[in-house]
């Protein structure tokens, strides 16, 4: 569903090294590499937000995308519950871990940072989509959250969804991903 050949992406100028990448339906691929290598930028390029400076990027036509970024949804001071958040993206609360399912009616700004992050992530992960792009999904999650997320990524992939995960968490990437692509620093010369 996604194929990139010698792709160089960036915002105002190229920031990633040329990379070959492919993703099939039902596959989970991890993107790792040191800070500043352009993992989030590449994810943004897959989503059509960042620019492609050279190379080739091909997405299956009609693909429904869902993107989770590292930005925290701005919900402080707003009367938005977990149910409201899930309804926005069309995600179902079914399958939420018990420690979150019982708080899904709570205001988001009354939840802990980790609980809020997981709900925000769940809303994207379970939105009706064929390709899900996740940027550092384990940020703010405790061990139970990471285990639950890992299990649900596999479940989502079994449904035919392709998933790209950017993460620094080596243990999580090893447990969750079918394949790992390590990005290298761009040679500025």
């Amino acid at each position, binding site marked *: 569903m996604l194929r990139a050949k010698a792709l160089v992406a960036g915002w105002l100028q190229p920031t990633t090294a040329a990379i070959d990448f492919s993703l099939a339906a039902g596959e989970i691929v991890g993107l790792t590499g040191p800070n500043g290598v352009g993992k989030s930028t590449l994810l943004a390029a897959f*989503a059509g937000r960042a620019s492609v400076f050279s190379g080739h990027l091909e997405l299956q036509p009609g693909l429904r995308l869902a993107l989770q970024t590292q*930005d925290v949804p701005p919900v402080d001071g*707003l*009367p*938005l519950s977990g149910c409201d958040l899930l309804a*926005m993206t069309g995600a179902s609360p079914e399958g939420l871990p018990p420690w979150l399912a019982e708080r899904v*009616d709570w205001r988001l700004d009354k939840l802990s940072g980790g609980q809020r992050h997981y709900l925000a992530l769940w809303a994207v992960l379970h939105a009706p989509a064929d390709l899900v792009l996740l940027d550092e999904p384990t940020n703010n999650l405790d061990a139970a959250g990471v285990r639950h997320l890992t299990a649900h990524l596999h479940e989502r992939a079994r449904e035919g969804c392709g998933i790209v995960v950017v993460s620094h968490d080596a243990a999580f990437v090893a447990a969750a991903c079918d394949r790992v692509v390590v990005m290298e620093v761009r040679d500025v010369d």
Partner: protein
Amino acid sequence: MSTDLFLIPFLTGLGLAILLPLLGCYLRLREEWLAALAYAHVAAAGALLALVGGLPPATGGITAAALAGAGKRLFANRLSGGAAYAVLLLCGWSVAVLLAANQSQAERLGHALFDGQLYFSSGEQLWLVALSVPVVLGMLRILSRHLLLAHTYPDFFRIRGLRAWPTQIGFDLLAALALALATMTLGVMGAFALVFIPPWLAFRRATNWRGGLLSALLIGLVAYLAAFAAALWFDQPFGPILAVVLVALGLVVA
């Protein structure tokens, strides 16, 4: 006092007391509550300009606010962080005050617009409100999910290929038109108070979006009914009384 004499103003204000708190919830969601004050001032200036030019004031007010709402997006990049609303507010206020100071006709209408003389509402205004309120509420209901999504998940909103213009320009236009209509009836500050205070109070306690909308609606209606009765009883201009009631309610709740 004839009941009929006050029925038209009461119903006109009631329609706006239903609409404005709900509109205010979406303005607060987008952190654009200053827009209400800006559109109200622009509408007042447009009404006065129209009067001086021999046109119906309502037409001038609505047109000016609609132009401000639609045109604001053109300068969005250069006037970020609410600066567009501050500029509109200052322009509207200065034009309105200068016209009122130099034209006797404009002075009378200017006082009415800034005092908020609901009791002088005409049958035409009632019809305009009766037709506009259901349309604006219906549009808000249609736009609601996209407004929430665009605020909470802007990247998700963009990559799903959802068209931004109905949500952005469409909402700006809707807000401008509603505020223009309200300014002609409730006055500048009366309209602003109904847009700002009910959502401010409702958002503090409501546990979900629907609850927030219902609470804002309820607060707006209670304040409107109390203000209508008080202004009538004490023979005072409606706008300031409504603002005082809402502020008092706000202080009690807060």
